[in-house]
């Protein structure tokens, strides 16, 4: 079979498949090491020294977070600003803030948030995306939710809503009561505030910038 072409040889294609798969897998593993370093959580010292981390430490809840256009990168990025009170305090220690975040992240899974909402854009599409929910104008002092829940701060309004969601309907499609306790609600709000500080490469685009009328309403 001297004149048989390699292109019709099963062994050739078997080896090609093994080489291509191996090469792609090694590249993925190498990139995984690089990415893992870049998305590891920052520390309190990073925040105090102004070191920018893609995923800041839990004590980011002590600071004001905004979402602003970065002209160099061509999209919006979270900006961590001056100190801001969160449930009346801006001095949460690394341990306290970490515990709150831990409780909130566990809560987000224990209540199946992701099976109605999207988090970082992943999940179900039955309810609003929560990636930057902390920065949503609806929860600001000018928005409707503080007045509706009778609370004076964003975090208290959010915690109230999470505990008694069907008391405050915003649409025919309502959030059900999931048995969220006051402590769990506080943790969940910390989790949402932390998530809003993650550098998501400009997703979602123009978040909270457009408050104009739709169809001339």
């Amino acid at each position: 079979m001297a004149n048989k072409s390699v292109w019709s040889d099963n062994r050739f294609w078997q080896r090609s498949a093994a080489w291509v798969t191996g090469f792609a897998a090694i590249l993925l593993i190498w990139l995984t090491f690089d990415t893992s370093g870049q998305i590891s959580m920052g520390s309190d010292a990073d925040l105090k020294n102004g070191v920018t981390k893609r995923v800041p430490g839990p004590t980011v809840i002590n600071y004001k977070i905004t979402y602003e256009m970065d002209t160099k990168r061509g999209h919006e990025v979270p900006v961590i600003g001056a100190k801001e009170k969160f449930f009346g305090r801006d001095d949460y220690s690394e341990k306290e803030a970490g515990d709150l975040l831990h409780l909130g992240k566990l809560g987000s899974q224990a209540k199946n948030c992701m099976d109605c909402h999207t988090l970082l854009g992943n999940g179900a599409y039955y309810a609003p995306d929560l990636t930057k929910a902390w920065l949503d104008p609806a929860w600001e002092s000018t928005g409707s939710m503080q007045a509706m829940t009778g609370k004076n701060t964003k975090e208290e309004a959010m915690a109230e809503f999470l505990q008694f969601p069907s008391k405050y309907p915003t649409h025919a499609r309502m959030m059900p009561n999931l048995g969220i306790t006051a402590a769990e609600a506080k943790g969940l709000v910390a989790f949402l505030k932390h998530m809003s500080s993650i550098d998501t490469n400009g997703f979602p685009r123009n978040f909270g910038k457009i408050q104009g009328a739709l169809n001339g309403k």
Partner: protein
Amino acid sequence: MASNHLKWESKQLATWYFTFAAIIFGAQLLFGLIAAIQYVMPGFLFEIVDFSIARILHINALVVWMVFAMIGSVYWLLPDETGIETVGIKIGKLLFWVFAAAIVVVVLVYLLVQVGPADETTIWFITEGREYIEAPRWADIGIVVVVLGFIGNLYATGMKGKPTGIVTVLMADMLAFAGIYLAGMFFTDNISVDQFWWWWVIHLWVEATWEVFVGAIAAYGLITMIGAHRKVVEMWLWIEVAMLFGSGILGMGHHYFWIGTPEYWWEIGALFSALEPLPLVAMFIHVLYDWGKQQGAAHQRGEEGSVITNKPAFTWFILQAFGNFLGAGVWGFFHTLPQVNLYTHGTQFTSAHGHLAFFGAYATILIGMMYVAIQGSNGIKVLKHTKSSIAAAWMIAGGVMGMTVALTIAGYVDVIVTRAQMGATWAGYFDGHSGMWMLQGMDWRLIMGVVTFLGFLFLIKDFLSTGKNAVHIR
């Protein structure tokens, strides 16, 4: 389930897996209908079976019935490929009952307990709350043990018997399929790290190992149903493996655009995921070309009639060739580039893609394998279509296609209004979801979902009755 036409115990075990898979498939459609009704009538079963619960059951049932049907497919083809009885079949049968019982417990807990307090006990015993792999940790460990048992049987049989190309591919693929699941079994406070590894499970299943699996099943089907030449089919299979893993493994980058991961994933994800449709085109050509080639050769030999020995199964294999290319390939490519995905990520558009891709790539071919098992169990030489099998194929395929089109139109509203126009806020979301095209899209999705479910009833009727039908050649 027992059949005196099956001389291999491995094939008997396969029929158990297929039977359980068909039941869970029905559960998937029922909970899908509940979720679809809730989009149209939000008060339906509110605070009884909420959307989140209906959806968990919808997508977990999807994964479970497919995994059961995949394991069933392997147990079915092993004796044909290796020429021997599956090694460790007694353990295989025991593991089936363990697996099935565990699934029933998980489902009952989802349905009756639903949520738990924000602590580790919920993660261990109720739900992990991570889309597709919500199964609590105890079940994760159980699934790993069961699947390792299955892989042990596969390896022992493949090494003792004749390791054909198809079996070799399945051995490598199933090991990767099981190994990847381990990446989804830990808890972290860092949501970016969480989602990074979560995609290892989801993406490397559905866009890599599962695709290679259906490539191997399609190869087996072509050999057994139309008499395609093994050497040709297995050469195609190796080319498909190279193309699928070559594009699919790094195509994972398209899930790393917006979850906190670095910008270089834009380029890597865009490039490799744009290549992902190519193997699906190759698989499409493979199936249709081989069919034409075998039919043409038979015609030249002066043989009248079709070369296909199992009409309903082959119909579903052809639907797979179209569905995989359209659902995974075309609908996937629509929104895979980061410039587009910035606006389409996490909208009804994703849902449209998800429905047609899971159905087109996997549901179709696994239904086809169930028909292969029905043929074998009843000792039928040529299994023909019945009125029910034709009605089922039209209604299920048409229903899912209809849902996909409806969700695509809803997706455009979501992308343009919720995202581009309103900037994705809470108010923006409900502006998008109050739009007329969104509301009508959801109405049509429900209607098409009902059509799909009626098609499923025809399918079950056919599964239960076609074996005794006199139209087949025995």
